[in-house]
């Protein structure tokens, strides 16, 4: 196991694509210390910004990187990783686990926007809140998250799961606007409330809102009332209104919304 402690609070964003078990596993302590990293527009080495501690940990077979301290300015931690673990004890910066192909990232604090964007496999678990575009595609691209799991225990921001193609995003707290925008497939589960416009331009996939939602987009049509819904094999008790959309894009996505928490939507029942 390798532990990283930031030597000083970062003012400029740090681009740390190299903090990944894939990179560390093949390198000696010396090589790891010399890894190149950008702080703002300055080239630094990993040891210049972080105190690096090597520990022999026989409890886990997987290679583990532990980051202790505030790394909310450090971007791309675990980007493109395919194995091992990263544990961030504190807040993590943007693009956490971008394009990751495997392994596990755990953050005890908050994470910023673009967490798990374009990820293909693996698990990201955030104990705190996250920013926008979780599991989304790159700007302009239509290739969003295509596998894996993102579990958020706090709240999430806007456009979560933009262009998502496969996998699961679970938000235990509340979620911002446009959850599952352009969604192609996969599942988004929201335990808390949604700010609305969920599923805009979705083609397929499933969004489950267990809390309150102000309104359903007019391009969604009510289809059914279901007593429960399956999320990743687990049953969630309802009842739920099931909406189909986004019809503006010829979509056939499923939007499940809790019936009990959304009494203002009962006027839809007359169309059943």
């Amino acid at each position: 196991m390798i532990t990283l402690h930031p030597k000083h609070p970062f003012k400029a964003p740090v681009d740390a694509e190299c903090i990944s078990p894939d990179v560390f596993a093949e390198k000696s302590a010396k090589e790891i210390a010399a890894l190149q990293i950008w702080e703002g527009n300055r080239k630094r080495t990993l040891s210049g910004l972080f105190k690096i501690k090597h520990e022999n940990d026989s409890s886990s077979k997987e290679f583990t990187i532990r980051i202790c301290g505030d790394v909310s300015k450090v971007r791309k931690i675990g980007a493109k990783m395919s194995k091992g673990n990263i544990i961030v004890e504190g807040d993590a910066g943007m693009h956490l686990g971008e394009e990751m192909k495997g392994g596990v990232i755990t953050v005890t604090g908050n994470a910023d926007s673009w967490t798990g964007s374009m990820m293909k496999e693996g698990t990201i678990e955030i104990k705190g809140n996250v920013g926008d575009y979780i599991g989304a595609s790159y700007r302009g691209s239509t290739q969003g998250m295509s596998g894996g799991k993102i579990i958020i225990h706090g709240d999430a921001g806007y456009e979560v799961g933009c262009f998502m193609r496969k996998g699961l995003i679970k938000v235990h707290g509340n979620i911002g606007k446009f959850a599952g925008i352009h969604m192609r497939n996969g599942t988004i589960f929201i335990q808390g409330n949604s700010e609305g416009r969920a599923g805009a331009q979705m083609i397929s996939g499933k969004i489950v809102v267990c809390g309150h939602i102000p309104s359903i987009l007019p391009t969604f049509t009510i289809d059914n009332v279901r007593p429960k819904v399956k999320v990743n094999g687990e049953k969630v008790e309802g009842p739920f209104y099931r909406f189909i959309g986004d019809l503006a894009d010829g979509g056939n996505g499923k939007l499940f919304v809790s019936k009990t928490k959304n009494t203002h939507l009962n006027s839809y029942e007359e169309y059943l």
Partner: protein
Amino acid sequence: MDIAIKNGKIVKKVNAKKAKIIDALGMTVMPGGVDIHSHIAGAEVNSGRLLRPEDHVNDVEVKTALTRSGVGYSIPSTFTTGYRYSRMGYTTIMNPSMPPLEARHTHEELDDTPMVDKATYPLLGDWWFVLEHLRDDLIEECAAHIAWMMTATKGYAIKIVNPGGLESWSFGRNVQNLDDPVPNFNVTPREILRGLCKINKLLNLPHTIHVHTNNLGKPGNYVTALETMKCVEDLAEGNRPVIHITHCQFCAYKGSDWRTLSSGAEEIAKYVNHHDHVTLDMGQVIFTDTTTMTADGPFQYGLYNLTGNKWVNHDVETETTSGIVPFRYKRKSSVHATQWSIGLELALLVKDPWKIYMTTDHPNGGPFTAYPKIIAWLMSQVARKKTLSKISKRARRKSLLPSIDREFSFYEIAVVTRAGQAKALGLTQKGHLGIGADADVAVFNVNPEQVDASKKYKTVRRAFKKAVYTIKGGEIVVKDGQIVKPVFGKTFWIDVKTSLPMEVNDDLKRKFREYWTVEYENYPIPESFLHVPAQISVKAEI
């Protein structure tokens, strides 16, 4: 054989003791490449760049001591465009579609495209004044008008895109054939084509009319392409071409819908082989992710409906339209694979390489950086077979390629990539290494006398990817595929001398005031606006 260069020109002899000598023994020496049709600058290209951050993210060029940073891939930034062309030994690029209203923007970007000489064609086929003049059969007045437009926009040739169709598109319609009248103007595509072809001759413009046909990109459109060529057949004099059908692959489709799509290359090639008034360029499709952009608004709308991708559609006031749709050509799609096959069939079936030129209609068929691949396909049946084995089965069954055993020689490649294009453009000082030509030279690391391109197509592809030397205007600008000296290229523009000046009356000014966002007085671009202007004067017959 030695090629002597002095003061940016190729000369008979120089003092060998004082001269810098480049030993190109065992290499291929060609004139600098000329691209007759490549969308590299202007409002449309720039909108494409803005539309596609995902196109740039994985293709970044870092700045060096000599070059600027930039991005690719299908729509590279201006400087990167210049560098990439130069690295492949190209020295002259034609930007084929410029709405006259966007001329200023286009020239600003062309000025920022280093390393190459360039020029741009204003879109005149759906310009209101042209339509009105042609409706009233005022050919000479229209010619005077276009002469003014060439000077005002610093243009090089008359570009016609989907004649009549673009004006119709402004009202949500399109024209279906050459005799379908344009709404509100009562003029047909045939009249537009013939009128502008006559005007092109009257003005003695160095290039012919540059035509993107009606019904482009629709199954069964090879008939329209043939009709378009036939409609100006009688205007030809001798064996001089009078019409250039651009990105011909996109208008060589047989069939009634996408399922039954097949190649019309044979029919088009047959016609072109028997007639001298037509030149073509390929518009070859490459299997890659690219960005389609044309002034053909209705075509782009169709493409958007087909793909459901993000898109841009624009109505450039009274002049033209435009559209942009990102597109991915897939090997396993029978339509895309058939398109790929048609492009090559055209090039191989047209017997005379001076009649068809190599382009991808960058970036519509694919980025220009794929040219070495096309060269390999043209030169080697093995290379074609290899790609054929990977494409959709249905497309493979329909393809004519297995029945064609023609393989281009190095000489023919030199024709389709430079000499032919320069000749079609009327650029007498480009595309050859004769005395008096501009000293634009490309040296490639492949020995044409020893390398059997048919088998060693990979060697050829590698060689054309990176020129050993690119010499531009007598200066070494690229060495071993690296830029060693950044230079500005010239911008060619046509100054047409007419005895009959355009009539500037109050009616014209009123129209500008009422219909354009730019006043008549602010419309022309002064020569001083261009970084390195290169005026070409021609004397018109009016």
